[in-house]
């Protein structure tokens, strides 16, 4: 499991092993101020990072930060 969260310290406190920081609380996989194509690109980057997290061996809580 990889968790995409807008408030990473919360899953970190719970001990979630694979955390992917999201965009914002009300729009974790997007940005309403972006034009559609730019928002899609952002969502693509975060989801790719989450899939990368699923493919990565981890021991303790690890952050996977999308570019």
């Amino acid at each position, binding site marked *: 499991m990889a968790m995409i969260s807008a408030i990473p310290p919360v899953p970190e406190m719970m001990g979630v092993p694979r955390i992917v920081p999201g965009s914002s609380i*009300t729009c974790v996989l997007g940005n309403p101020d972006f034009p559609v194509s730019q928002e899609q690109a952002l969502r693509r980057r975060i989801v790719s990072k989450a899939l990368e997290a699923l493919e990565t*061996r981890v021991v303790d809580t690890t952050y996977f930060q999308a570019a």
Partner: protein
Amino acid sequence: MTRVMHYINQFFGGIGGEDKAEYPLTVTAGTLGPGRLLAGKLGDAGTIVATIVCGDNTAQYSPEHIKQEIVALLEQYEADILVAGPAFSSGRYGLACAEAAEAAQIYGIQSVVGMHPENPGIDLCPADVMIVKAGESAVDMAASMEHLCRVLVRQAAGEPLGSEELAYCIKRDIRCNTASRKKGATRAVDMLLTKIGGGKFESEQLPPHFSRIEPAPPIEVPLSKIALVSTGGLVPKGNPDRLEASSATKWVSYSIAGRASLTPEDFECIHGGIDVTHINAYPNRLIPLDICSEFRAKGLIGALDDEYYVTVGNLTPVARAEQFAIELTARFREKEVHGVLLTSS
């Protein structure tokens, strides 16, 4: 003689197993099932005036309604104290026992509950409820009932528990108000200075304890089936299963077969803790089905589960969320899901 109300589930009430988990809340005068053992141990100290039997699923579907029914029955039978369980390791039964204990608190009487130390129901029991340690399963019934009875007799008599009885109970970190000669600000600064100076200090409050989660081994995503899960409360328009906006009592799943995107016409966000405007405008902002479908078509993801799974994290107790995870994992194993993307706010 103390009048005891006993709460048990459908299995211990002799109704049936998992197939009878939706058994309605019913009451029977006197004892049922393990209540007979308890009554024998109580002797003259108390009498079990009635036994409430309720299906484990029923207790989860509408907890407020169940609590009200229990309160009414406590009044009807003029109960002095409530005993729930022992629930052993059964998670839903433990949660139901916690609800029964809450009902007792509402009615204004004490309760004693029995369950295994790792039962998720523990954290949902009101702070002043004594929880007696039980084993993992009914194999431990005799010992569990013996200890439950000892604690029950003390509580009913209003007597403090002896050290032996306290050892039978599960230790909980409960905060109590007390007066101090120094203000909180002064104590905090003193503690900080001691800490900086390398001295020994004692924290006034222990941080919450969350058990370590063992990370799952990595998977090869292009060869794996991925499921989309969210605590963000995205549901079909109209919220057909009435998922709660906060303190969710369940998780639900909805078909995304044939869908490449979650559309604003068909879905809405009912999460009660955030502004849902942006998610409602474009639900893929919470559950990224659009991107995952694209990746699936390109072979970057092996397969997508034909359903997505959702609950609401807002004010939902950790213990209950743990129970959801246990149930979801069982479902994922059935559906041969290899990996999960969990999204939240």
